[in-house]
């Protein structure tokens, strides 16, 4: 289908779809995103939904939304505020108005603005009619009735017909922004192929929405957003959780080991379990354990057997697993612990994002219990960092934390698909013959380079040995209560983890003379990057660096920090990395914290930086 109305070219747009949890906003957003990715725009997304499966209809807590930011240039955040807000009911308007700047376009399903629905969320009068939206560009459309009308020829109840109104809205938006329709049509066909009536309803509503835009006077112009310049290659749109799952598969393939995922479902990590469950053809074993502890326990068991034990969870699960992770530290077995962080403490805000498990990952175990800690910066970086986590775990025989978070786990971006050949090597190097002077096997004899211990898996003839969680004697690994040995082993484990080779921190400073560094870790990369672009465009010199290795830190980190007048560190916690850096390097970083369950906006970071830059 081709658009015939006048076309305005935009460099970027932020669209937010908002409706009831049952209105299918996540699906609508996903589809629009896929279509947008195919057009070659760069993009980032932010799904946002309540912790209830389906909170009460028509209430503010029940609102689910999906925000998409796309443009003709490099995009690294889902956008601070929507240019276009699509709202399916009064609750969605109520919940999203505060974020929506004056002048924005608001598309409303006016059918839902009944007195009852309005009063449910505390509107005394109808905001569409009472003038309170005068400073916005409002399109109040009878979305529901138009959908029902379009489906009149199908034998559906009104309720059934109404369910397709999200497709009507999607059709309309697709028209407005010239999104291709074939992909979504194919998608619907695949999804509802076995239910022809529902398929027909969805396709009809989708096309009706498109046609409505094309035909009606209500929309005078349509918009186009040119593709973003991107490195040549084949791309796909990918979310953090999927990228992370693929990274694990890739690592196992490269290393030639079998993945064993021991996991207990938990938001927002469950999708990794779901994803890997689908990939049994890779020989992956997914074990939905009876609890968090069994998940990590079974993973350790599989690692002991020579597999790659992985456990995926979120903060409360890490808390429960911490004793078993400590066993992993003592046994010196490979173990990858994926923590898709969410709002805490306790159950906290299960569907919201946060970076507040860093210190738990570092210190949340009894005794001196060092683990490697990594954090991906973006959805697609989850792929690379998952491989890195597996590599370190396997090569150093150590538990490795991978700290993703709800924001990058569910958010997505275009990803240039790497060739398999370009992926890094992983050398597992299992023991096959005795390594002792007298023909015995010494399971705690170490590689002098990496300090990794000799690792023989059951089934290896002649290397039978026993390991355990009690302190081990150097070399032999037998139980030892010797004070000097304990001191030695505690320091050796620390040295092993401290000595893991990680790349130096890279500084981005085109001016080469910035005096202020914006430092980040994990998912704050997007907003920090975007803020840095804004600051530089407005004439400020500012350097950016992003930590993906939190333990050990890159070797050059101390020097880097000390070479700037000020280091600004935004975190979605109360300053956890700041505390680590201060403790390690005695450097007075300027912590800029927020704990709102939401990623930073670009504007927040720009303002925080300006406060420092303008001193």
């Amino acid at each position, binding site marked *: 289908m081709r658009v015939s109305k006048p076309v305005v070219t935009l460099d970027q747009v932020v669209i937010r779809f908002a409706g009831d949890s049952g209105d299918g906003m996540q699906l609508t957003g996903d589809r629009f995103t*896929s279509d947008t*990715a*195919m057009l*070659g725009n760069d993009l980032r997304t932010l799904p946002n939904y309540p912790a209830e499966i389906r909170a009460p209809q028509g209430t503010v807590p029940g609102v689910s939304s999906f925000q998409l930011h796309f443009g003709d240039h490099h995009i690294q955040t889902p956008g601070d505020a929507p240019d276009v807000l699509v709202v399916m009911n009064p609750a969605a308007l109520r919940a999203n108005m505060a974020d929506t700047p004056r002048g924005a376009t608001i598309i409303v399903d006016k059918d839902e603005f009944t007195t009852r629905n309005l009063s449910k969320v505390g509107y005394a009068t109808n905001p569409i009619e009472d003038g309170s939206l005068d400073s916005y560009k409002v399109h109040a459309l009878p979305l529901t009735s138009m959908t029902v009308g379009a489906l009149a020829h199908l034998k559906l109840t009104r309720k059934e017909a109404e369910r397709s109104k999200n497709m009507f809205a999607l059709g309309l938006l697709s028209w407005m922004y010239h999104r291709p329709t074939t*992909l979504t049509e194919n998608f619907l066909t695949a999804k509802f192929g076995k239910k022809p009536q529902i398929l027909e309803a969805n396709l009809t509503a989708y096309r009706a929405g498109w046609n409505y835009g094309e035909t009606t006077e209500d929309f005078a112009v349509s918009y186009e957003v040119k*593709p973003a310049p*991107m490195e*040549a*290659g*084949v*791309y*796909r749109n*990918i979310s953090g959780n999927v990228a992370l799952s*693929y990274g694990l*598969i890739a690592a196992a393939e490269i290393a030639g080991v*079998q993945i*064993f995922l*021991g996991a207990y479902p938990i938001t927002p990590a469950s999708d990794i379990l779901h994803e890997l469950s689908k*990939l*049994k*053809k*890779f*020989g992956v*074993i997914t074990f939905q*354990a*009876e609890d968090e*502890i*069994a998940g990590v*326990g*079974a*993973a*350790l*068991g*599989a690692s*002991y*057997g020579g*597999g790659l*034990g992985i456990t995926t969870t979120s903060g409360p699960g890490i808390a429960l697993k911490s004793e*078993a992770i*400590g*066993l992993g530290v003592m*046994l010196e077995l490979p173990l990858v612990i994926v923590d898709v962080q969410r709002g805490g403490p306790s159950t906290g805000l299960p569907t919201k994002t946060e970076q507040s498990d860093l210190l738990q990952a570092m210190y949340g175990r009894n005794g001196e219990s060092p683990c490697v800690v990594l954090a991906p910066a973006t959805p697609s970086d989850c792929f690379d960092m998952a491989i890195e986590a597996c590599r370190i775990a396997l090569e150093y025989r150590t538990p490795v934390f991978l700290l993703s978070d709800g924001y990058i786990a569910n958010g997505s971006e275009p990803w240039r*698909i*790497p060739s*398999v050949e370009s992926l890094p090597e992983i050398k597992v190097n299992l023991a096959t013959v005795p390594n002792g002077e007298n023909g015995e096997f010494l399971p705690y004899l170490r590689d002098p380079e990496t300090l990794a211990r000799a690792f023989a898996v*059951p*089934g*290896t*003839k*002649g*290397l*039978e*040995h*026993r*390991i*355990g*969680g*009690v302190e081990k004697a150097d070399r032999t690994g*037998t*139980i030892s209560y010797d004070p000097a040995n304990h001191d030695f082993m505690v320091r050796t484990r620390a040295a092993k983890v401290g000595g893991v080779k990680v790349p130096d921190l890279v500084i981005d400073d085109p001016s080469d003379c910035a005096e202020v560094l914006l430092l980040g870790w994990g998912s704050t990369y997007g907003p920090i990057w975007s803020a840095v672009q804004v600051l530089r465009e407005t004439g400020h010199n500012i350097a950016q660096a992003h930590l993906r290795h939190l333990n050990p830190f890159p070797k050059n980190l101390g020097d880097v920090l000390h070479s700037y007048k000020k280091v600004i560190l935004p975190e979605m916690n109360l300053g956890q990395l700041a505390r680590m850096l201060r403790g390690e390097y005695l450097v007075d970083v300027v912590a800029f914290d927020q704990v709102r369950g939401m990623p930073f906006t670009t504007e927040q970071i720009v303002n925080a930086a300006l406060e420092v830059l303008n001193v």
Partner: protein
Amino acid sequence: MSEVTLTKKDFTSDQEVRWCPGCGDYSILSAMQSFLPELGLPREKIVFISGIGCSSRFPYYLETYGMHSIHGRAPAIATGLAVSRPDLSVWVITGDGDALSIGGNHLIHALRRNADLKILLFNNRIYGLTKGQYSPTSEQGKITKSSPYGSLDTPFSPISLALGAEASFVARTVDSDRKHLTETLRAAAEHKGSALIEIYQNCPIFNDGAFDQIKDSDTRDEVLLRLEHGQPITSASHGVISDERGLLEVKPLSEIDQSQIVIHDAHIQDPTYAFALSRISDSSLEHVPVGVFRDVERAPFSQLVHEQIDAVIAKEGKGQLAALLNGGDTWQVE
């Protein structure tokens, strides 16, 4: 079984055994070391995984692969190993505290899944390693360090609990009866899937004599009801009969007719019969069935896991990394 012929000595590690003099664990260890050659497996194919407790020291003394893990978690760790390495023979060593207190959840789930584990529960009815607190199998009213006025908890019957958790193989034996212990190990080893063996084990330091009735030669034969498949269930003086509701009762042989005595059948699918047997003994140990209560076939967990993977590969082909990465909607940027 296979050509490998090993002896007890081959399975004895060089570690000094560290239990108190007279501890029942010694006899169990010795029986196990003698039994292992029967498996017909090379040593490297055998793994012992334990939790924490006196009993959990067991793996150190066996010249096989082994892990002395953390308290209560051995069944979970062993499940991960057994599922990913179905070529191994995986044994779990645990105590009444380790298995039934902190590890209760992993035990019941391992049993319902029928994970390929032989679980040896050393039941001394006390926490040995932490120096004598009551355990989930201690009799109510027990005076211990943590219950100077008597414990209040109703004890578990490990056998009843296991049957309630869908266990496919459940047995009970006694540390001091080497022959019976060995037979029971053999039966467990032959069973596919998970096997739970409760072993009454004397702790001479903190709960001495707990099982004297079933060990002393002058009481033993009156107390023990030996379960043998196809045989009537009797002790020297008593027999087991069934009332009209199927509840089992122990009666003096003098009061009943031989024909009334229940013939043991370990292979009944419905676990109710085995459960009824498990209720014959309570913590007073007046009459104690020993032997295999239940032994029924059900596909072991790792078989199911690997059959599923094989079926998927047979249908979809082996996974190709490049194809995976390039799946979904893709587009080309020149």
